[in-house]
């Protein structure tokens, strides 16, 4: 320390030598540094004195979740229980046989924290997807259990998919006297039309679809851009959840890519938009809303009444539905059906592998 002092700070007394240049520079530098520190301190103090901040730093925003439990029993004297397989946290499946009436009971699970939700009921080889009534908050009521009776025209695997939010058919239901046939309320009796394996049974449905597709194509030509945009948005959301469980979302994606079914997509999107507008006019806080992702997927499949599923997988493939619902290019669609099916299958397997690895 003494050496450092002598080297950089020592100033000899008068008559004992000159002040070295190094010492002068050091002293000047130190003085300048002190000046800068003082100016900075003064500035910071002045700024702090003339400013004030009030903050709230710990505000937590949390999410709810919705889970539904399913119990099925045969509605006859024997009252036997049907085995319900839980595929994952939101999906239950059960094998239902022809000529039997099943009593289905749906209720929110104990671990459920969302105030409302619904279930989507679908089946293999069935074109229609049914939405149940809201479980939980439904307007001014609270629905704890939904019981309905289900029959199928052919033995099939029925799937019950829990979904949070509000059904896109809710707006129709709230308009009294205009209940959508695809909306299942408490004590309803539903007959699911399940296609058999015979091809001849499909022809009338194709004709019916031909009529529908023409109507939707003609009516919705002017809205093609906006509807496509909106469905693309929905498909983007659905693509983000790309697993085999999200087949409906992938269906909407592939449907959008097929130009011949633009009309149907438009119709479904317009319907969903209308549902949204009607829902928005409702005074319900949580139940009078729609889910456009589901609209894009479910309404699209609903408009494809004649689409058949040739896939051996549990879930229907989008390509088969989109191809079979077209009428203008039925031959081309048949050829593309196979290609799209292959692509979709490959994509779905990749998605499954990715999710498993994650």
């Amino acid at each position, binding site marked *: 320390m003494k050496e450092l002092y002598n080297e950089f700070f020592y100033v000899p007394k008068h008559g004992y030598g000159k002040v070295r240049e190094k010492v002068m520079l050091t002293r000047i530098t130190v003085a300048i540094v002190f000046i800068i520190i003082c100016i900075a301190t003064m500035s910071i103090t002045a700024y702090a004195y003339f*400013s004030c901040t009030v903050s709230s*730093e710990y*505000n937590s925003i949390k*999410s709810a979740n919705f889970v539904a439990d399913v119990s099925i029993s045969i509605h006859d004297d024997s009252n036997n229980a049907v085995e319900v397989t839980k595929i994952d946290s939101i999906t239950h499946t059960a094998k239902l046989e022809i000529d039997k009436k099943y009593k289905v009971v749906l209720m929110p699970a104990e671990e459920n924290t969302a105030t409302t939700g619904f279930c989507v009921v679908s089946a293999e080889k069935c074109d229609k997807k049914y939405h149940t009534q809201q479980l939980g908050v439904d307007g001014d009521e609270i629905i704890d259990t939904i019981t309905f009776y289900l029959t199928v025209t052919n033995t099939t695997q029925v799937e019950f998919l829990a979904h949070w939010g509000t059904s896109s058919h809710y707006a129709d239901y709230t308009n009294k006297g205009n209940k959508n046939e695809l909306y299942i309320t408490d004590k309803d009796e539903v007959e699911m039309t399940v296609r058999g394996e015979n091809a001849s049974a499909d022809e009338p449905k194709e004709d019916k679809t031909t009529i529908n597709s023409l109507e939707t194509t003609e009516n919705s030509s002017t809205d093609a851009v906006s509807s496509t945009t909106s469905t693309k948005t929905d498909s983007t959301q659905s693509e983000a959840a790309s*697993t085999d469980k999200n087949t409906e979302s992938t269906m909407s994606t592939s449907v959008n890519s097929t130009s011949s079914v633009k009309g149907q997509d438009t119709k479904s999107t317009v319907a969903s938009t209308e549902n949204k507008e009607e829902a928005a006019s409702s005074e319900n806080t949580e139940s009078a809303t729609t889910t456009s992702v589901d609209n894009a997927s479910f309404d699209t499949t609903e408009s494809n009444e004649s689409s058949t599923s040739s896939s051996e997988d549990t879930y229907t493939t989008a390509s088969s539905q989109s191809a079979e619902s077209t009428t203008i290019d039925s031959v081309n669609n048949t050829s593309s059906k196979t290609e799209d099916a292959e692509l979709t299958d490959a994509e779905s397997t990749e998605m499954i592998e990715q999710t498993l690895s994650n």
Partner: protein
Amino acid sequence: MQKIKKKAYKKIALALSLCAILAWTALGTSASLAWFSDASPEVKNIINFAEFDLEVSYRLEDEVTYVPIDSQTDIFDDEALYEPGYTQIVYLKVKNNGTVPFNYQTAVIINSFTSGTNVFGQRFNLQEHLKFGLVTAETDKNSTNSTLTEKEVEALVAKRELAKEVAAQPLNTYHSSISSLGVGETTYMALVVRMPEDTGNVANYRGTQPEVNLGISVTATQMQD
């Protein structure tokens, strides 16, 4: 020796004479100054530093009274769980209790977040599925005033459709424009956070509950004229 003593006495006498002259001059000057001037004893000239005092308080939709905010205050409802269609509105009241007008700015900051896993097994961040909006006097296109009253703010977000229009941007770090508040003035703001109705099962979590830790701060600085 006598000469030296005489010199010393002379010096002392001269010094005393000079002091007497100075004293006489000072007395004469002070007396004439006092005679020809007058002062009011009641005037007080006090020099103070400017006082900054910003008070921010909040209330939820269902509440009536405003509660002051500090660093430990949680202005959002702890028990609220966001699901499709859920909307939460927090009303903020900013008051200038100081002695000078100031400029203030509101900031919303995401301090931290916890990712969740949805029903499809995918990771997601909750803030990506939330929308928010801050209603201030500047954002109200119909108002030309620099402040908003409580009723005006409530009218802007009273209905669900209006709240949807206000809360349209994704939840992210946000800084409002700089506004001014005069001495004693009060302005009201509304912070809206909602989950859109079309949020699908991609945000329906399983396992770890996703969470967003949000920070809200109001900063006032000296107004520069």
